[in-house]
């Protein structure tokens, strides 16, 4: 690799720090606000970046006002369920589309492409009436179901399986392995990077979704964190410390999870997911 001139490196770091301030700065500002005590003015000019006397009091208080931990638990249930259904459903369907020969394969693939093209926002009302008819409205099950197997995830898995060399499986076929055994023992272990990407996308998608849970959930004890926080925003906007504490609770688990998995994630994306 050719050597990078010193000035170019310096410029790159300078620009990266600038972008860092713009992308991560707001989160740090929110964290700082959440740690400021009620005696501290949060509206000083110039803005005070660090809390004078950091306190965790706001976290206790936000939990008194809205059941933020219950909401977090609801979000966690929804997100974990979505990860499991997406991993299972998308990898199985992807494997069939990429690795099995059968009549109707093209039509089945087309169904997923069509589903990918449907703007979900344009069918939420129809989904909502369906959940009502199924007597599932206002349940966490209804929150999970529409995204239980994402069309995009199926196509990502199909591409990952399609990229595997044929020879490995041919040996297994000769050994008498059936499709399920080949899928579990040879297919799945070879596409771990893409599975990680699907898992992260499914978790984030479910944890962060707002429109659908807002529409389908009515009882406040069923709320997921995003819907609950919106409620906090409306009612307690006068105390930004509490809103800040609520948002930190909502975003911290995701940032920690992402920080732990990011290596895997970036590798998985680079490997085949985006290249196709």
């Amino acid at each position, binding site marked *: 690799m050719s050597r990078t001139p010193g000035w170019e490196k310096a410029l790159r770091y300078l620009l990266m720090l600038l972008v860092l301030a713009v*992308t991560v700065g707001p989160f740090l500002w929110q964290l700082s606000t959440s740690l400021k005590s009620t005696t501290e003015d949060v509206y000083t000019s110039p803005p005070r970046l660090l809390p004078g006397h950091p306190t965790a009091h706001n976290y206790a208080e936000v939990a008194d006002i809205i059941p933020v931990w219950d909401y977090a638990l609801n979000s966690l249930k929804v997100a974990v369920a979505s990860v499991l259904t997406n991993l299972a459903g998308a990898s*199985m369907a992807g494997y069939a589309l990429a690795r099995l020969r059968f009549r109707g394969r093209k039509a089945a693939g087309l169904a997923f492409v069509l589903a990918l093209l449907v703007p979900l926002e344009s069918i939420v009302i129809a989904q909502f009436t*369906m959940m009502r008819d199924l007597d599932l409205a206002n349940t966490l099950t209804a929150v999970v179901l529409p995204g239980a197997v994402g069309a995009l995830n199926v196509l990502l898995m199909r591409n990952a399986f399609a990229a595997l060399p044929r020879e490995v499986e041919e040996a297994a076929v000769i050994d008498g392995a059936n499709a399920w055994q080949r899928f579990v023992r040879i297919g799945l272990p070879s596409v771990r990077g893409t599975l990680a990407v699907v898992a992260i996308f499914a978790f984030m998608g479910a944890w962060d979704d707002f429109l659908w849970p807002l529409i389908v959930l009515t009882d406040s004890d069923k709320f997921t964190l995003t819907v609950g926080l919106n409620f906090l925003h409306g009612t307690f906007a006068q105390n930004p410390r509490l809103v800040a504490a609520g948002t930190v609770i909502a975003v911290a688990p995701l940032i920690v999870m992402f920080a732990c998995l990011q290596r895997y994630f970036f590798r998985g994306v680079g490997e085949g997911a985006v290249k196709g």
Partner: protein
Amino acid sequence: MPRSASRVRTHRAVTPWLFLLPGLAVVAVFSLYPVLSTFSKAFTDARTLTGGHWVGTANFRGLLHDEQFWVALRNSLLYVLLVVPFTVLLPLLLALLVQKQIPGVAFFRAAFYTPVVASVVVVSLIWVWMLDDRGLVNGILHVLGAGPVDFLGDSWLLLLSAMALTVWKGLGYYMIVYLAALGNVPRELHEAAAVDGAGPLRRFRSVTVPAVRPTMVLVGALSSVAAFKVFSEVYLVAGPTGGPAGQDTTLVMLVQRTGTGLNGRVGYASAISLVVFAVALLLMLLVLRADRTDRKEKY
């Protein structure tokens, strides 16, 4: 043995469908069927609790005279017009910035992805707090000697703030898409251009842009559809009623407001949904049509 041979054949025919069943069922029941049901409901006067009767094109004729609908359509289209150019260009520049393998660059890449990871509700609340008339942004403006800007009081500033939020939240996501594409650009092209005496700007225009053009088109298509369907950012920044006099309502906000609740006008909301559906598909086709050069890069 003929019996086992036929059993193998049945297995071969049935097994793939067993693999496909969960995925196909979810997609068919919760994505494809609702499209058909939206189509048929759009021509009825259905309410949340009643099935409704066929009313022909009454809902669509109603839309023509519905001032809120035109405001919402305008806002959603403006969103596409103003958000997409930034979403196509800024993440590309960002990807170029973090493309080079220099120490610590992995940290920056991951950090730039933070806004993507955070939920839209969280980032909206953060931005509302920062754009408050006494918030961080106005604090910084004050230090710089500029007067306070009422970001959250004016309907145009509200909409622009929501757009800025959308661009900011998408930066990291599209940066990753570009990074993957840039990885495929042959290094020799850059070197050859450098030998020919092309400066960085020139090389960006004549080497990088043509090489990632298919990706730019893809990003353009994805982000225009996403921008047209915007709901959460505007709902959270401008409020459920869409800012002063509802002037910041977007189409999907109108769908949500019209079609839900105990007395939701499901038929009318379905008609608006169809408009969202049609325009979204049209946008996708328009952008993809603009690029016919290289089809091999896509699926």
